[in-house]
């Protein structure tokens, strides 16, 4: 196992410099090892998929980066500098935005308010709606998912449109890293296609995206690199172009030899 980890870390030498990285992160819940000495690196301008079976540690891992879970030990670095992520606010302050499956949107409010939630541009405490509208149109216009109207309550939007609002918010905040938890779950075929397209657009804009997904097909259609988790450990990180779906599934289930997958 140790030989393998050395081998796939060569990928990091290739990559210029990690934007966001985890070093020897562990998180235990009683006897359950949710994460065990996990190293992970996200480079600038890449889409990085995290895959694994239920309970493999994918969710805990992104929660650590999102500030929703505090690791027991380990270090997080952003742009080479060690950072502390104690709560969602810390994470957001470092330009990391997490789009959770149950999105943090206010259903009763319109799209515009949700795009700027908690960060409305103001003059002396008064909200500058015109500036909000201009910025919103600029950012949403670049995404392939169209929102019917900025004054539409979010409750009336489809799953994909809601994701677009959440992503739009991240873009408006100037986030550099967007973490998406199962973005294509519970979406129809057409909406899924559009969400995948939006992820592609984020990469084109120079952002880095971490995607947790169960769907191998989606993972292979968008990811640059794939990190496989099993039993709270990082089993491997592979380049999409250098592997196959069968090999990755093998890694997830533990039937594939790591050397063959890479």
């Amino acid at each position: 196992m140790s030989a393998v980890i050395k081998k796939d870390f060569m990928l990091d030498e290739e990559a210029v410099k990690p934007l966001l990285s985890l070093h020897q992160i562990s998180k235990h819940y009683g006897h359950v090892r949710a994460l065990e000495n996990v190293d992970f690196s996200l480079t600038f301008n890449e889409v990085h998929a995290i895959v694994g079976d239920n309970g493999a540690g994918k969710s805990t891992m992104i929660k650590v980066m999102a500030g929703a879970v505090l690791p027991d030990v380990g270090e997080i670095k952003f742009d080479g500098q060690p950072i502390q992520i104690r709560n969602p606010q810390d994470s957001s302050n470092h330009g990391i935005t997490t789009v959770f499956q149950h999105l943090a949107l206010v259903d009763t409010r319109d799209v515009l308010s949700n795009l700027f939630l908690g960060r409305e541009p103001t003059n002396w405490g008064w909200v500058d709606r015109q500036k909000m509208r201009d910025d919103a149109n600029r950012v949403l216009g670049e995404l392939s998912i169209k929102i019917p109207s900025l004054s539409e309550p979010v409750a009336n939007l489809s799953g994909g449109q809601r994701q677009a609002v959440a992503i739009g918010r991240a873009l408006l905040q100037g986030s550099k890293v967007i973490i998406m938890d199962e973005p294509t779950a519970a979406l129809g075929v057409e909406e899924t296609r559009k969400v995948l397209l939006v992820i592609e657009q984020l990469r084109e804009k120079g952002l880095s995206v971490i995607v947790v997904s169960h769907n191998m097909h989606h993972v292979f259609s968008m990811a640059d690199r794939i990190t496989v988790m099993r039993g709270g450990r990082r089993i491997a990180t592979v380049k999409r172009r250098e592997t196959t779906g069968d090999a990755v599934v093998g890694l997830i289930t533990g039937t594939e030899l790591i050397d063959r997958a890479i």
Partner: protein
Amino acid sequence: MSLDANRNNSVQATKNNQTQTPEASKKPLRFFITQEIGVGASLCVLIGIFSLLQPLFWDRGNFLNISRQAAEPALLAMGQAVAMLAGGFDLSIGGIMGLTSAVVAYAVLSVGVIPGMVIGVLLGTFIGFINGTLIARYRLPPFIVTLGMLSLCRGLAYIITGGLPVLNLPEEFSYLGSTGYVGGLPIATIIAVVIFCIFYTVLTRSKFGYDVYSIGGNESAARLAGINVARIRTLIYMISGSLASIASILLSSRVSSGQPSLGDGAELLSVAAVIIGGVRLRGGQGSLFGVMLGVALLAILANGLNLINMSSYVQLVAVGLIVMVASVGSVIRGPRSEE
């Protein structure tokens, strides 16, 4: 809650991916019309009925009277609306009114009219601050905190007055609530209108207003987005408390005395106006304009029933029925109840 929303969305998404968008955009508009127009129409019907039954009703003097009688309920309903929009509610306003009335009466007697009234508003704001702190910082349920505060304030009011009205207040004190007119309008009405304009603008245009709606709509999302939920929560109870004390001063001024029992049942009437006005029961949705329509409806109902010699018991029954009907509307109207 969000689970529900997600399920609905996924069902919709798979059911009618293409056609869903235009339908969805029509929906809120339709409900907006039903709500505000619905209350407005009921108002017109009520006015028509009372005018037919009692010629005295359709009279300039009577309408001025209604506008003055509605001033205090309007202030109370605005405070309650702010609290409910942020997902809380304030049952203590009746107690705050009683205590303020008693304290203001003694203060007016000892330090003068204007300082006395200032003390009253500060008192109401301070009680609201305690409510807010207990609810926001110590996470106590608003129901328990404000109900306890209602009893506490009412009790204090009776203790300091010995249960009797405080009389012999100076004549100038009656100016605000009863004898004062500006441009033919009662001063109490003007105060209520000015405060309405202020809070309407604050709720729709200010950062504070945005935060109130966001917290009421989805508290955890608001917190995740970095909104200081505890601070806003505390502020809304301070607003509710200060408006209750202003209402109390106007009423005390109208009756030229300090009344420890003032504001008995005010909490129900204010909640009634807010619900009739179309504010979502769990908060996050509704307008202050609708709430004012609710206040007008209740004021005209009370005035009309009086004029056609219906007993006040009938009014209680009518208010109860209207609240129940209106809250049915509020539940149906909710954004998650897709048909």
